């Protein structure tokens, strides 16, 4: 698993700003995402209405999550599958390993899953002796590069085409390609993956939604790799976090209406699959056993608290794509599993405040994330609440803590406030340029006195 280094955000971000290759990759990808989403929204009569319906569907689900999850389990069981509950990441990994062992499997293929990233599932499976291949193109690329994903829906977004070509040339034992066009690269990866699909014993996929009334697992993909991973091996395992639950197929549809549009600018992704259970008829082939492993990892504690809104997140990635911070530093700078605004809220809640200190602060509160969030999650408000908690636990730097304390006191004592401003104005002339930071012009006071002073002087003169 990647090393968790969210506390090094600033150093990592500054490094990313200097990385010209990364900047190129981010530029191209980011503008693409933003433009495609905008276009998709233009084609809808009333996206606000779709948003409201999606949000309502998810709110309904959260308000009766316990009941719906049990209902989901009953339905999966009735369909011939089995639901496992994992309190934390370690339990999920253990459960998946046990299922794989019982299935007598050795080779595993996997569709993209952020829950798997959250729990460190891949390294756990490899440590347990399994052979594992990621089948989502982006995930496959970063598996070869031995890197964590840098985006929740586009894991290799930080790589340029040429970097991918080099990576393939190093890892694929085959004659060199006739050019690095994207189509060629995709064809090459497909060829490599095909053999893996056919020989795997276990397929692991993630889920976008869990439907309580039918016990369906809904998965959206564009490459079809998820379906091959789910359908070809004898054993199918779905890993998902509990907040993916919705009550009905209709509610699932309400979420799907906004998911594709917000994520990739598609009204619908190329594949939207509903998995319901193992294949009943032996003659039809695999899979013969079907497992759903549900992860809590602190989420049920969030349900009743002030951060509940983040559980509506459908991991579309719109807040990442539109965030000025994310789009300039990329996902790796965050040093966490989930990057960008939603990650900066979720990570401190899933881990601890002390190991994620910069994340809630890595926002200028520009509000664009909240504006594009299809689930109406008030991300800036949640980040602000996390800053409140950091302050309560004295996790902010001493200088800031003291400085803001003094400023707050002054703000409530107007005479002292005025006097301090007067002194500071004078002092501005004395501050040496390096104080303002490299690259900034020193600020010098303009005019004679503060605005309030000037105003009152002028009105005295008028009288």
């Amino acid at each position: 698993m990647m090393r968790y280094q969210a506390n090094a955000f600033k150093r990592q971000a500054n490094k990313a700003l200097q990385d010209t290759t990364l900047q190129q990759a981010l530029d191209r990808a980011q503008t693409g995402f933003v433009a495609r989403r905008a276009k998709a929204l233009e084609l809808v009569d009333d996206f606000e209405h779709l948003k409201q319906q999606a949000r309502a569907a998810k709110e309904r689900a959260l308000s009766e999550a316990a009941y719906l999850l049990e209902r989901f389990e009953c339905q999966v069981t009735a369909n011939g599958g089995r639901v496992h509950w994992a309190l934390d990441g370690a339990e999920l990994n253990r459960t998946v390993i046990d299922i794989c062992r019982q299935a007598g499997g050795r080779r595993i293929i996997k569709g993209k899953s952020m829950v798997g990233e959250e729990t460190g599932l891949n390294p756990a499976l490899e440590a347990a002796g399994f052979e594992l291949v990621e089948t989502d193109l982006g995930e496959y690329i970063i598996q070869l590069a031995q890197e964590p994903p840098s985006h929740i829906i586009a894991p290799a977004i930080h790589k340029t085409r040429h970097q991918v070509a080099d990576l393939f040339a190093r890892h694929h034992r085959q004659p060199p390609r006739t050019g690095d066009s994207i189509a060629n690269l995709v064809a090459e990866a497909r060829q490599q993956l095909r053999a893996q699909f056919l020989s795997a014993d276990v397929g692991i996929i993630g889920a976008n939604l869990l439907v309580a009334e039918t016990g369906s697992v809904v998965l959206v993909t564009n490459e079809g790799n998820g379906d091959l991973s789910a359908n070809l091996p004898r054993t199918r395992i779905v890993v998902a976090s509990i907040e993916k639950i919705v009550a009905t197929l209709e509610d699932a549809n309400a979420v799907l209406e906004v998911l594709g549009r917000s994520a990739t600018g598609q009204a619908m992704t190329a594949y939207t699959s509903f998995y319901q259970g193992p294949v009943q008829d032996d003659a039809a082939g695999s899979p013969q056993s079907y497992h759903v492993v549900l992860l809590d990892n602190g989420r049920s504690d969030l349900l009743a608290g002030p951060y509940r809104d983040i559980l509506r997140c459908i991991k579309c990635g719109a807040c990442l794509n539109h965030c000025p911070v994310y789009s300039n530093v990329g996902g790796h700078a965050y040093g966490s599993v989930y990057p960008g605004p939603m990650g900066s809220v979720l990570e401190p809640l899933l881990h601890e405040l002390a190991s994620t200190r910069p994340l809630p602060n890595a926002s200028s509160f520009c509000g664009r994330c909240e504006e594009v969030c299809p689930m109406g999650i008030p991300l800036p408000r949640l980040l602000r609440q996390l800053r409140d908690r950091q302050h309560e636990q004295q996790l902010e730097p001493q200088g800031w803590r003291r400085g803001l304390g003094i400023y707050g006191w002054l703000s409530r004592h107007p005479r002292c406030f005025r006097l301090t401003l007067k002194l500071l104005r004078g002092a501005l002339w004395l501050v040496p340029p390096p104080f303002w930071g490299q690259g900034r012009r020193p600020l010098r006071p303009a005019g004679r006195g503060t605005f309030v002073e000037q105003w009152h002087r002028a009105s005295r003169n008028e009288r």
Partner: protein
Amino acid sequence: MGHRLSVPRDQTCCGQPGYNGGHRQQARAVARSQLQLLADFDFVVVPSASCAGMFINHYPLLLADDPHWHEAALDLAGRTRELSQFLRQQQWQPQRRTSDPRRLAHHTSCASRRETRSHSDTRQLLLAAGYQVEEPANAEICCGFGGSFAAKFDRLSQRLGHQKLDACAALAAEAVVSADLGCLLHLESVAGGPRQLPVYHVAELLAPVSGGRRTP
């Protein structure tokens, strides 16, 4: 326009630094003191969208659990206007058209877009005064100020500032105008070297056409 204007000497700060910096209790105390100070005015006109947004949207949230102060906060929210918003609502007209021939880039600012929703008011005022004003590309993206964000993540903040100035330069703009003082402070400090664009608050451009002070 027939209003009597006062600038209370005891006004300090809207409390946003503490509010955004985790000092919630302190921000509440600052909010209460400003609410008292501003209780008796028909309108509270704020020459910065970010501070206006604090009064309009955030005081009611901040004081939500205290019925007395919450009501006072809602009352202030209803009386608060960002300067350009106020001028437009009061049907301000210039006394003459400007003779300033410069092309201006209008930095709309996140707060005037998303907090006060008054960025088009600013633009309309400037157009009415005869200025050549245009929005740069990606106008909806932050300039990188964000209060303490600019200090905590200086390089990132400067990068965003340069991207904003690049977009302004792409318009062949000769100056930047905004209704948000924080953004202007930041953009002015970043605008060094070849891109020495002067920055103006919208009031500095409207004053000379209203019989006031010349644009500096």
